[in-house]
């Protein structure tokens, strides 16, 4: 049997924060691998550094030491626009606070991820096709009748569904969710988790960060972040 290369892999990731002359060593050598079609949960108490780790994996922040490999490619060696492109094309982010753009309606919020990285000239040629996909995604997350609504007119759960659709628009290799149910009530949380499970069943690679043990259990594999290390 040929061992498949992991989609995402981290090697001895270290992250320090300086605060008021104090050195906070948040991540102390993280080694982890995520394989295709895997659903990995990262569990840890609040403040343990889960978000920090996810940001590093997603190329949003830089580590003080260590490297992240995406399909064997060193992410932090990417120059110029390539790192932006990595975030845009290969990773999809879902945040606890949804982070939708208030001026755009649901459909536009989903589309914008696809517009980024496409020039004014390139966009019109793909527009129709991408719009179809965005509508399809919104249907998948159960929002087919909310497409023209702006975020302020949507409930928390609905906003998070829009955010998920946005994260999926460019068919990312890895979907990263940072406590996606942190701001939601139990019922809504449940339905969002179901959505993740469904995506996973359809083959989506997923990393889900949570401080809720119950949620962590639905994953294929659960890593626990304690004292800056995974166990």
């Amino acid at each position, binding site marked *: 049997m040929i061992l498949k290369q992991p989609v995402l892999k981290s090697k001895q990731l270290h992250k320090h924060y300086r605060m008021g002359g104090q050195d906070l060593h948040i991540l102390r050598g993280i080694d982890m691998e995520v394989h295709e079609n895997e659903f990995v949960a990262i569990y840890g108490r609040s403040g343990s550094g889960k978000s920090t780790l996810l940001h590093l994996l997603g190329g949003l922040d830089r580590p003080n030491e260590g490297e992240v490999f995406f399909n064997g490619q060193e992410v932090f060696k990417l120059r110029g626009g390539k790192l*932006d492109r990595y*975030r845009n094309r290969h990773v999809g982010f879902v945040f606890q606070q949804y*982070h939708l753009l208030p*001026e755009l309606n649901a459909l536009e919020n989903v589309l914008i991820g696809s517009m980024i990285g496409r020039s004014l000239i390139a966009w019109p040629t793909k527009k129709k096709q991408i719009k179809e996909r965005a509508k399809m995604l919104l249907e998948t997350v159960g929002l087919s009748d909310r497409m023209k609504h702006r975020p302020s007119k949507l409930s928390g759960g609905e906003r998070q569904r829009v955010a998920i659709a946005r994260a999926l628009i460019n068919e990312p290799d890895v979907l990263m969710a940072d406590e996606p149910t942190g701001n939601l009530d139990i019922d809504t949380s449940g339905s969002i988790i179901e959505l993740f499970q469904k995506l996973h069943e359809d083959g989506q690679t997923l990393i889900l960060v949570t401080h809720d043990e119950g949620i962590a259990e639905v994953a294929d594999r659960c890593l626990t972040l304690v004292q800056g290390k995974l166990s």
Partner: protein
Amino acid sequence: MYKVLLIWKYLRRKLAPMFAALAVTMCTMMVIIVISVMGGFFELLSSSAQKLSGDVTVTAFSLSGFPHYQDLIDEAEKLPEVAAATPTIQSYGLLNLRRGGANGPTGNTKTVEVMGIEPESYNKVVDYEATLMWDKGSLLDDLNRLSDARKKQLKKWETEDLAEAGSDELKKQIKEDYAAKLQQLEALTEEQSTQLSNYGLKDMGMKLEPTSQRSIRAGKELPGMVIGVEVNPYHSRDAEGKYNILNAAINDNAVLALMPINEKGDIRGEPANAEFAVVNEFKSGLYDIDANRVYVPLSVLQEKLDMTAAEEYDPETLMPTGKGVPARVTQVLFKSAPGYTAEQTAAAVTKVVKQIERENLGIPILYTQTWMQMHAHLLGAVQNEVGLVTFLFAIISVVAIVMVATTFYMIVLEKTRDIGVLRAIGASRWGIMNIYLGYGLAVGVIGALLGLFFAYEIVTNLNEIQEWLYQWFGWRMWDPRTYFFDRIPDKVDPIKATWIVIGAIASSVVGALIPALLAARLNPIEALRYE
């Protein structure tokens, strides 16, 4: 693509950028208005100056003038650069204007600049005929207008008097009185009209000879004089800057006291008096000229100022010695041929002047000047003013840049989290910067075009606006009595306006630049954490 979408959305949803746009609008508007009005004023002034002095002048800077001017003219007219030339004498004198002929009741004396001209050639070099104020038509029109006004006044008085009158008899009396007055007025108007229609006013101005009965009535043929409208002491302009025809000095008797200066530059002779009949008035548009200058025939002035040619006779043989003095003038004006600039013409004329100087030793030093050099003090002052005001407004425009910068800084602060989100989903720093630069550009374009629109509306309607302000508040921003010209310049120069609009848009982009750079430099993680 997302940039365009976001700029569009931000423009539609935000009040803040509208303030920035408003600042751009105001600055664009101010600068365009000031440049249009002041620039227009300068252009009016310089075109009047050019029309008044021809393109090139050759002057002896002594009132005693210079001889051989006819040689100069003849030679110069052979040049391809010169279209026409005319000799003039510029002198000074005391002018005594008398209403109602030589023995009229009131006289008024003032100092004037006396220009001796040959109207026909003078008119070829400068705008002379066009500056003559009165022609038959304008006189008759004004006469009828005034006569109508008087009729109305009479009618009004009549009704007032009738209302007060007690008995029917008295009423009848009043009616008869007024009917008589009205008839008298009509007769007068009639007489004046016929008189006027006999005058070829323009012709008289052009010939500088009166055809009127008055000079004949005075028992002698008087030479004609054309005076500046503001020289006439009886004129006063109404609020619109119009002159009252009945106060025109036409046919008034004018006496000039002149100081002859001999060819050696001495003023030891007796003052000379000369009598003229005013045949027209002129209005060049330049107040200084209109308030000081009078035109008289060159030959008359030469004679009075001892500037005519004189033969010297041998006292014994009574034969000419051949050492006589030639006629003199103080300046010769030239008009450039089409296609030649004043500078080119001046250069060509200078050569002729040098030649004349070589051929006639002892001729006074002659100066060749272009019209711009001639009027440098006036034009320079106004141009400086235009420059200064433009500079001041450019500084004010910096305020617009600062306004845009602060507004955009606020917007970037407000949008920090969204910037983080955009970075998280793959937008580059460059892309973020372009959103805000593009936003600044859009605000600039909107602001500048609005500014252009308002400025255009205001400038082209300035005179109407002024009229309106005057009617409602009794305030006049542009007093025709102080600004040389009747109308506020009301043209927008499209090229200058385009530059100002481009400048305003550029300012707006510059104002957005620092906030855009700040936005681009934001750390996406910190931006996402931003509350």
